[in-house]
């Protein structure tokens, strides 16, 4: 019964989306955005959010009680599974994750309909229309080819279980995080298309779109950070980024969103980069769709591809071509109607942000090329592989100049500035970079990229807080704090990557109980190996005692796990975390002579990679709060009769004021 309620709610929501499409269209056609039908657009969007929430709750419910008469539950769940993984099983599969996507999208649409009143009504109606158009495609996909509530004629005695790799708290929340990011970009896309169609690319439009971009970007950042950490501890070999197609699929929307975030700020503050911002809005969502397509269709081979199906791939491809192809064509037809906007000097905040945008776009282009190139050659029956040795240096060509600009840019004034004004902080940062570079080059024999990474990380760490210099800190807008912290996060993450790459130490050994093992500053021994059991697995667990530089002995318990539904072996690594790095221990198989295969890595500062990612997200969060609070304040002031629209952004104009 519950499943049928969910399905009914979904069909109703789809019908409402159709209504919203028509109503929004009628509104966008009318000169003032007001048509009889148009009044229905907002309620339709709001009600859709409620219905989708009902559908999603229904799915959670059937998973929670393991209702095996529902096909999806029988295929993906098991009555013996821990409760939290029963719930996460609801979206740990294709149908459920698409329902999650649609639900988040409906919620976002409902929210816009409910609270957004700043845009001209016509643009607003066009936005809701575009949102409904995108939504309808996904409803169709869900209802026609991936019904999550399908019943089975014969109820099986037990479910199939969930892929053990997905039975992990980090991964349980990783896909939803990315999806929220993707959906946020779909909202930005709807805004961009609406602004394009109604010829309303204004700073006000940018301010309306910005929180959605920021929000999406925060979730993407968290998603990628979490995904990287998951790969790190779950795959058992200590790698944290493989330039794997699925990883790239999540990186590309992030790169586009990062560029969009910065260009939308320029548009909001200075009314410049109009065309470019719209273009990025389209590209950011394209990359989300493309990512979903690549992951779901199984068109590229990847270790992360858990749910592949070529037929569904065709459906997503059709949607991709419809939305993105359509948007690009509209854009090409309409772009000339948007004027370029305000002008600015090369040495200015806008100039720096343009460099940032170009760099990010170029890296995006390279990642896209490297990811899809094997697919292209395969069409000609040639198989090539593109991996880290290509992506690392080639993206560095654009990344390193961006780092230089990132250190200087936030210090510059809008519109026009002189280098001589900021020569002191620039000289200080340059001195730091060069000192670190020389020191590292003399002391260590490490690769040039790691060296540059360390030096730029040090410089950026200092430079990221330079905009706060001489400011009254308690009066500094939250958005500025957010920017500084996010930029500092980049420095932290970069430092972690460079340090781990340069100074990681590896030890592979076959040990008997009692043997001593050394890796980097750590000394340890294998104390015992015993069999342990969990709810749906058994494992061989190695008990190790390890000490850092002769300090107290710490315990580590890496396991080699055997799951039985479905049958699979996984490696549960043990991590000993210190402030200055992580010891990574994995246990492998037992050799014929009775010795155990141990793999140990001492990874200096590796945790900084994910701390950095979290700092970036935190910075985004602060900026989001700052912007939303600023918007609310402005709205209140407008209601009281003030007319100071640029209050918030104007405060950025003169950083040292």
């Amino acid at each position, binding site marked *: 019964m519950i499943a049928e309620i969910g399905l009914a709610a979904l069909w109703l929501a789809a019908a409402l989306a159709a209504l919203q499409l028509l109503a929004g269209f009628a509104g966008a056609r009318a000169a003032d955005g007001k048509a009889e039908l148009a009044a229905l657009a907002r309620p339709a969007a709001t009600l859709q959010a409620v219905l989708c929430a009902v559908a999603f709750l229904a799915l959670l419910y059937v998973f929670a009680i393991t209702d095996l008469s529902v096909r999806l539950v029988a295929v993906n769940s098991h009555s013996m599974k821990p409760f939290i993984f029963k719930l996460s099983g609801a979206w740990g599969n294709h149908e459920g994750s698409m329902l999650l996507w649609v639900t988040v999208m409906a919620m976002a649409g409902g929210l816009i309909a409910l609270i957004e009143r700043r845009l001209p009504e016509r643009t607003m109606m066009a936005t809701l229309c575009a949102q409904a158009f995108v939504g309808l495609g996904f409803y169709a996909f869900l209802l026609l080819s991936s019904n999550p509530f399908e019943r089975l004629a014969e109820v099986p005695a037990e479910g199939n279980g969930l892929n053990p790799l997905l039975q992990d708290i980090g991964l349980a929340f990783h896909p939803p995080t990315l999806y929220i990011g993707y959906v946020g970009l779909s909202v930005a896309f709807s805004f961009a298309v609406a602004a394009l169609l109604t010829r309303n690319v204004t700073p006000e439009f940018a301010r309306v779109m910005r929180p959605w971009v920021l929000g999406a970007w925060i979730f993407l950042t968290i998603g990628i950070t979490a995904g990287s950490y998951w790969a790190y501890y779950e795959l058992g070999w200590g790698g944290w980024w493989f330039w794997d197609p699925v990883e790239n699929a999540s990186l590309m929307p992030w790169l586009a969103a990062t560029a969009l975030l910065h260009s939308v700020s320029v548009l909001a503050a200075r009314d410049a980069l109009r065309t470019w911002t719209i273009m990025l809005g389209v590209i950011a969502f394209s990359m989300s769709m493309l990512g979903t397509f690549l992951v779901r269709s199984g*068109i590229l081979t990847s270790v992360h591809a858990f749910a592949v199906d070529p037929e569904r791939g065709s459906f997503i491809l059709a949607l991709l071509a419809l939305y993105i*192809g359509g948007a*690009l064509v509209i*854009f090409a037809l309409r772009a000339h109607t948007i004027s370029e906007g305000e002008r600015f000097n090369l040495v200015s905040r806008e100039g720096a942000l343009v460099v940032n945008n170009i760099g990010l776009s170029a890296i995006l282009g390279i990642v896209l090329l490297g990811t899809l190139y094997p697919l292209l050659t*395969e*069409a000609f029956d040639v*198989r090539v592989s593109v991996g880290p040795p290509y992506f690392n240096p080639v993206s560095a060509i654009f990344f390193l100049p961006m780092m230089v600009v990132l250190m200087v840019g936030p210090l510059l004034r809008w519109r026009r500035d002189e280098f001589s004004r900021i020569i002191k902080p620039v000289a200080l940062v340059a001195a730091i970079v060069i000192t670190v570079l020389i020191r590292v080059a003399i002391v260590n024999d490490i690769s040039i990229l790691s060296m540059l990474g360390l030096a730029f990380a040090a410089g950026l760490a200092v430079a990221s807080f330079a905009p706060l210099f001489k400011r009254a800190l308690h009066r500094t807008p939250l958005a500025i704090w957010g920017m500084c912290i996010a930029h500092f996060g980049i420095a932290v993450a970069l430092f972690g990557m460079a340090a781990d790459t340069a100074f990681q130490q590896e030890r592979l050994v076959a040990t008997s109980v009692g043997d001593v093992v050394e890796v980097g500053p750590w000394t340890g021994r294998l104390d015992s190996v015993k069999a342990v059991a969990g709810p749906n697995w058994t494992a061989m667990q190695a008990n190790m005692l390890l000490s850092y530089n002769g300090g107290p002995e710490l315990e580590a318990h890496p396991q080699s796990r055997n799951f039985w539904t479905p049958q699979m072996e996984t490696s549960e690594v043990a991590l000993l975390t210190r402030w200055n790095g992580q010891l990574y221990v994995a246990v492998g198989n037992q050799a014929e002579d009775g010795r155990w295969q141990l793999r140990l890595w001492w990874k200096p500062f590796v945790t900084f990679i994910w701390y950095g990612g979290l700092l970036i997200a935190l910075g985004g969060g602060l900026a989001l709060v700052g912007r939303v609070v600023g918007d609310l304040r402005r709205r209140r002031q407008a209601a009281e009769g003030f007319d100071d629209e640029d209050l918030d952004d104007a405060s950025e104009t003169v950083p040292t004021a």
Partner: protein
Amino acid sequence: MRQLRITLWIIVVLAAGLFGLFAYQLTQPKDDSVRSAMIGEPLPQFDLEPAFEGRPGLASTDFANGEPQLLNLFGSWCIPCRVEAPQLEALERAGATIHAIALRDQPQDVARFLEIYGNPFTRIGRDDISEIQFALGASGVPETFVIDGSGRIAYQHIGVITERDVPILLQELQRAGSGS
């Protein structure tokens, strides 16, 4: 402005091309096997110990005897290898000489495997560390090569030999015999 429009149309065309590529690839059967780059090349040099007592070991020199022959890579631990056993026997009955390399395999396991699933092999060498597999450019087991009479690799069959593959392999053998 005109330049902008041209750029945008170029992007539209690129996107369309990309969608076309995706559509094409979706219709193609997904073939994840890695093909050998050694087709047409002479067999790499090797001289392998017998994989079990029942058959002599295998050396690359066993192939250059003027007759085209088959070289099968298998392992007793490999389930698909059991599936293709009847087809190998059919090939042998049709007159093909089949040599084999047992990959990462223990003699007693090989003996038991051949006892259960039949032994159509003339010679069986053992490769405990996949060295010859790499030298051949083979992606795994089971895999079957057609070697012509001069010791050149003429054809590679990846994966299980199904009943449909038997005539294909016989034909390739014949072609290797007449071609050289």
